[in-house]
Structures are given as C-alpha cells and as structure tokens.
C-alpha cells in the first residue's frame, strides 16, 4: 500500500474577507490510518482547516491535494465521496426526515441502487448498535443519538478518512464514550477537532496544536 497522503495542504494562504489572514504558508498532510487530534484556542482556524480540506472554502494561495492530485471542480465530488466530514452541529448534518433515509443519503449519491443503499445503511446502523433507530424521525433524537447517527451517515459511504468537528460538544460522558468506542472500531484515517483534550488523547495517535495560523 502506498504511503502517499490521502489529503495534503500545500502552502495554503487563507483569510476571511475583512479580517487578518488566518493561514499563510500552511502545510498539512493526512496519511492512511493516521489518527490526528487537532486542538487550539477558539478562532484559531481548526474548523476552517477542515473546511479547506473539503473544498468548502477556497484558499487564496497554495493548493489542496487529494491522493496527490490538485483538487478542482472535477475531483471535488470524488473527494467528498471519499472523505467523511462530521459537522459540529448534527441538526445541520441530519436533514432527512428519518434516520434510515439520512444514513442512506450518501450511498444513494454514490450511485448504489435503492436496495443496496438500504442494506448498506442498515448494516452501518447495526454495526453501531443503532438498528432500532432506523425508522425514528431525526428531529426527535437526543443530542448524543444525533451525533452517532451523524457519524453513521458518513460511515455508510465507506470513506477512506473521517474528519470530525467537535464530536463531543454538548454531550454527556455516556454519549462521549459511545462515540469514542465507535471511532476506535474504525481503522481509517481521521482528524478529530476538539477542545476535549482527554477525548483527543484517547481517540488520536498524534496531537497537533493550531494557534496563530501555525501548526
């Protein structure tokens, strides 16, 4: 298996309009089976870094590489189908009316047939102990349940890497432990952004601090 990075940021410059530059000359790589924990003060650009990787923000300089290929309009869709991004707010992530529909949304977009997407979604839910939630309405789930279903909704796409933005925010210890267990079961590469140092230490093999636009 090649050790080429799945994702790489090269010489990235980025800043939001009307504000000082957030990143200048930033380099970052994510390799296979690498588990990175990312922490830093509020406003240091942790979420922005993930958004840059997923093509939700366009850098003013430098480039984003996916398997060594610069990300452009054509490769962006492939990147998003290969890298799972769990958003901080699950209500933004779970837009389908039922859990099953939401978890099957990604597989359907990958081109799977209806019955295949359905069984892929059920398989993912079962592997996470969430099979009983399949017909539940997403708006009626608790915070912890929503977060787990959010993770299921990206895992059902069988991604080669997972980016998680504050997966434990507003969760109790029990939900936090469940998410940790789920993450530990996955051997795919991941970047976890969190303020919860203990969670990062348990879920990541290397910790990276981001502050003042530097890593």
């Amino acid at each position, binding site marked *: 298996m090649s050790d080429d990075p799945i994702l790489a940021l090269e010489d990235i410059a980025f800043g939001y309009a009307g504000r000082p530059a957030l990143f200048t000359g930033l380099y970052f790589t994510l390799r296979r089976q690498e588990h990175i924990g990312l922490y830093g003060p509020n406003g240091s650009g942790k979420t922005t870094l993930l958004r840059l990787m997923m093509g939700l923000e366009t850098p003013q300089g430098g480039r984003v590489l996916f398997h060594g290929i610069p990300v452009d309009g054509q490769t962006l869709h492939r990147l998003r*189908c290969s890298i799972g*991004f769990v958003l901080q707010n699950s209500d*933004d992530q779970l*837009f389908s*009316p039922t859990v*099953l*529909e939401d978890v*099957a949304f990604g597989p359907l977009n990958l081109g799977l047939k209806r019955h295949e997407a359905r069984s892929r979604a059920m398989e993912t839910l079962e592997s996470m102990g969430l099979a009983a939630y399949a017909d539940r309405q997403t*708006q009626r789930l608790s915070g912890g349940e929503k977060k787990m279903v959010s993770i299921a909704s990206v895992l059902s796409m069988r991604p080669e890497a997972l980016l998680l933005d504050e997966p434990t925010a507003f969760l109790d210890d029990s939900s936090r432990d469940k998410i940790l267990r789920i993450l530990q079961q996955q051997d795919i590469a991941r970047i976890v952004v969190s303020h919860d140092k203990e969670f990062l230490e348990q879920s990541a093999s290397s910790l990276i601090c981001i502050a003042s636009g530097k890593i």
Partner: protein
Amino acid sequence: MQHCSPTPSAFCHFDPRTLLLAATGAALCFSLVQSLALAWVCLALALVLAAAGRPPLALLLQRLAVANFFILFLWVTVPFAVPGDSLAAFGPLSVSREGVALSLSVTLKCNSILLCFLTLTADLSLPLIGYSLERLRIPVKLVFLFLFTCRYIYVIGEEWRKLQTAAKLRGFIPSTSLHTYRTLGNMLGLTVINSIDRSQRIYEAMLLRGFNGIFHTVTELKAARSDVLFAVLFFSTLVCLLAADICLKFRNV
C-alpha cells in the same frame, strides 16, 4: 418504512399512495357536489369511513373543532350576504334561505373532506406522506421542500423559543409598546438570519455527502391486491356520487 402508528387505524395496512389518492379523490368529489342532499350523503360516507377506520377520536374532534371555528365566521356573514327568500329578519338585516343553504353545504362538505383526510391519513407520518407524493410523481422539488420544512420547522421553532427565553431571562415582558415591537422584530429578524445560515450549512452538508442535485430515497412502497380492491370500491362510490349530483342538477333544470 413501517407506517402504522401505535394506535393503528383499520387503513394502516394499505399503501400510503392508495390512501392519499383516495383522500384527494374524496376531497375533489365532495367539493364538486352541488346538491345539499348529496352533501349530507358525503358526510354520511365520511362518517362511515371514520367509523371503519377508528382514528384517534380526541385528535379527530380537536382538529374538526378548529376547522369549524373558522366555518363559524361563514355562518355569521353568508346567510346575511346572499340574496334570496327571507327566513328571518333582524332589523335591517335578513337571513336568506339560499344563504343558509350555502353555509350548510360548505359546512357539510368541509367536515366530510376533513373527516376523510384525517381518517385515511391518520397513520401516515409526514416523511411517509412526502415519499408517497414523490412516488405519485409530484415534482420532486416540491416534495423535498415539504420534507425539509417538516424536518426544520421544529428546529426553527426551538430557536425561536430559545430567543424568547433569553429575552424573558433579561426581564422582557411583552406589551403593546414600541420596545416590545422592536424586540419582537429583532427576534424575528434573527430567526430568519439563523434560518438562512442554517440552510447554507445544510446545503454544504448535502454536498459533503456527494449530493449532485438529484434527490434519491430508499423508501419502498408496495401496493397489494387489497389496495386495488379498496381503490376500485372507493372511487366507484365517488363516481356514483358525482353521477347522482349531475342527475339531480338536470332534473332540477
């Protein structure tokens, strides 16, 4: 997708599309009926349906009460406004026979339609209604607009309640004052802005999972022989009702 509620009605095992088509057909047919006698038949038919379906009675009555509250306004105005034979007079105002007949007809038809809809769709969840509409070839954008509204109306409502709580916690007591109107305006504005921001984030979440402009669903709906039988019986009854109405109209002419 399972669609039987915890207290299932007799129609719970029918295909949701059959039920939606039947309810829509009934609404169309009942609204076209012009004879007052047949409007009573419509109500009788709806009552038979409700008796057979046994939807949750309290909820049914509650919803009928809300609809009839608005119909009450019709009774206050229409009998006085429609010209015709006078039944009674209150000073300069007179109640016409035609006005009363029209109000009664609207009341009967409205209640019949509501009863049919509430009975036939009692077991259907909003998502199931959405996916059934999609299979019935309703434009997919409209269907997903409906589904997204169902999904996020709770979230927006929750945000509105949080803003209200935040205002109350800082001593805000609504009154008829400029301060109240300004505060409520700010809260409403903020809710709209938050909703726009959220819609942007949801769109991003969709793109992140490979959305390319086409909506797909995994919900499978299957019509059984019992659906066909029910549909044939139900629509035959509706056609007979319309035919009887046309006959009555020609006889009166």
